[in-house]
């Protein structure tokens, strides 16, 4: 029987990824640590991220690109120098019958 890891990222099906703070908890150590650090920095250049990871810029860029594709990070290339930034999703509203919401407002 396969070992059950409660922190294994749940499989998603279809559509573009939308990530929340909760999804961050399921990332592997390296990626999670990088985003934790990026959240505190707010933004960082590739050189700063590489220094944090203690990796070459090529290696760091690959990690960041993977995080961009997963929906955790965005690349702000309009800035000079370009920066990486955590991509925090909107906290979703809750689904309840409209009648209840209308009664509260």
């Amino acid at each position, binding site marked *: 029987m396969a070992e059950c890891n409660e*922190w294994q990222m749940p499989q998603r099906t279809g559509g573009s990824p939308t990530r*929340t*703070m*909760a999804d*961050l*908890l399921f990332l592997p150590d390296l990626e*999670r*640590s990088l985003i*934790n*650090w990026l*959240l*505190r920095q*707010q933004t960082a250049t590739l050189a700063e991220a590489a220094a944090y990871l203690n990796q070459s810029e090529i290696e760091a860029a690959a990690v960041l690109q993977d995080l961009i594709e997963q929906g955790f990070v965005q690349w702000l290339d309009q800035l000079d120098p370009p920066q990486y930034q*955590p*991509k*925090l*999703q*909107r*906290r*979703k*509203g*809750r689904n*309840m019958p409209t009648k209840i*919401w209308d009664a*509260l*407002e």
Partner: protein
Amino acid sequence: MAQIISIHSFRGGTGKSNLTANIAVAVASQGKRVGIVDTDIQSPGIHVIFGLDEDSFTHSLNDYLWGRCGIEKTAYDVTAELKTADGYREVAGKVFLVPASLKAGEIARVLREGFDVGLLNDGFQELTEQLDLDYLFIDTHPGLNEETLLSIAISDAMVIILRPDRQDFLGTAVTLEVAQRLDVPEIMLLVNKSPQAFDREAVIEQVQMRYGVAVGGLFQENDEMLQLASSGVFWLHYPEHPFSQEVHAVAQQLMAASSH
């Protein structure tokens, strides 16, 4: 650079907001500029301890999150409102409070529409810069949700409050595991509402053994706290009370940790 300290408890009713207010004002009394943000949007209330009611503030954190105003508009300087038992007390530093709305419709709107969690992170940073804060205390919602996870993730230190209660013990383990996954540099446990009959040192030892994390303070239940009923900052009303001495000891530890 400002230190961000989030105050959290896994369950409600632990006295989180009261301890947040007391510790934050104790830090301010040491000449520090302190901000407090009420991110407990679903069940806010820390502003009551500072004598604010819905009529005394025009903007809240909710307004900022909905793009109605800048974060600085939601911060109220409550330093001059710090009451003692027989008047007002001047503190050496400053205390700014960002309240969350206590209006039912606005709480419902947050639940209904959600908000941009990224704005919260930007707001914390802008607040510390614009108010030139030394410390920013974040009063979080009990349990785990999006804004609480963000608050924990960006904190330099996290204070977890628990009662000597089995449910609190189990929930605190969850919070600790999450805090460790979010790389919080400093974690401190505070035991609150400990019955007078419990042996102080035995409770502290039990908690430290269980979690392997330092207990920064233990606060016993007391009648004076019940009588004050959130109408003020406890240690300003009862400066010689053991609870107040413990508040100052915790404040000193947090300041010492941030100077490392």
